[in-house]
């Protein structure tokens, strides 16, 4: 190992923190431009949706359990279940389905 781990940690931390903090501190007024405002309004939903599917099918042991957790999570969130209930139900379903399918 020729490189210093602590220098590595410093480099990665500096880059990550700059990415997070610089926009938050530089953009201090409400953006007036309608396109930009609309764009930023839609970003969270698009980005979270993109990260959820199909990734949820790939993190579980079998895609079936991930798919069922996805369906249950959507249904529960649709009817207004709490954050804890939605998350816990997804976990429980994966555990039960895999217990039945994989033993």
């Amino acid at each position, binding site marked *: 190992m020729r490189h210093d781990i602590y220098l590595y940690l410093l480099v*990665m931390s500096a880059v990550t923190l700059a990415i*997070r903090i610089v926009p938050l501190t530089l953009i201090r007024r409400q953006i007036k431009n309608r396109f930009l405002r609309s764009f*930023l309004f839609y970003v*969270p939903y698009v980005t979270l949706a993109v990260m959820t599917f199909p990734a949820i099918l790939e993190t579980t042991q079998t895609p079936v359990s991930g798919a069922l957790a996805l369906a249950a*999570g*959507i249904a529960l969130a649709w009817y207004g279940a709490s*954050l804890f209930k*939605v*998350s816990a139900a997804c976990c429980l379903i*994966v555990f039960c389905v895999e217990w039945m399918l994989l033993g």
Partner: protein
Amino acid sequence: MADRPSDLLPSRRDVFFEGIHDGMPIALGYFVVSFTLGIAARNAGLTPFQGFLASLFNNASAGEYAAFTVIAADAPYLELAIMTLIANARYMLMSCVASQKFAPDTPLIHRILVGFDITDEIFGITIARKGPLNPYYNYGAMSVAMPGWSIGTALGVIAGNLLPVQAVSALSVALFGMFLWVIIPPARDNRVIGALVLASFAASFLSAHTPGLMELSAGTRTIILTLALAAIGAAFFPVKDPSADREEDESHAA
């Protein structure tokens, strides 16, 4: 969420505890995910303390994982910087979004501290919460999420594959459940958001199976699809003036 008293002004302490409450499932999910991240850190030659530091200051799953592979390869510092920049670039978008949720007169220190832990999950609950961003809500969530993440990483370095694979598999969907909790109610109430969520699912699935795109990392695909789809939404369905925008903000929080 729906029964939260939003019209009377809650104290900082109340808001802080509200943040702890909502941060709890995040912390649990983090603990498990970071445990597996710790295994990657160990493979890169990190000690438990170094794994702890990496997670405390980076709070990023894909970003840290990518960084550990670079460290494991003993690559130049510049390569690590570029890899971290690409893997974490989506946080720049999230930081821009969060900047618009702050009241304009918010002191700089709150912006810096909140920015410190803009993760996918903390960002999610920040956006879902009614009204302007209250930093104490974020501090509450951070106070449980950050230890969950950094201590989980350290334990992962120490204990490796201790957790049974069934438990890892089940707990790995906790964070996805949280994403669904953030996006589904607004998708139900706002047609444009609903259509964008469906389009995002479809585009994400297709891009993961399309030659030319599937070779890119998941983080890079997320950025490209986010830029494209949010731009399409903004071009064809621009939100109304700021007051109407705020109304939408409130309806999707309920």
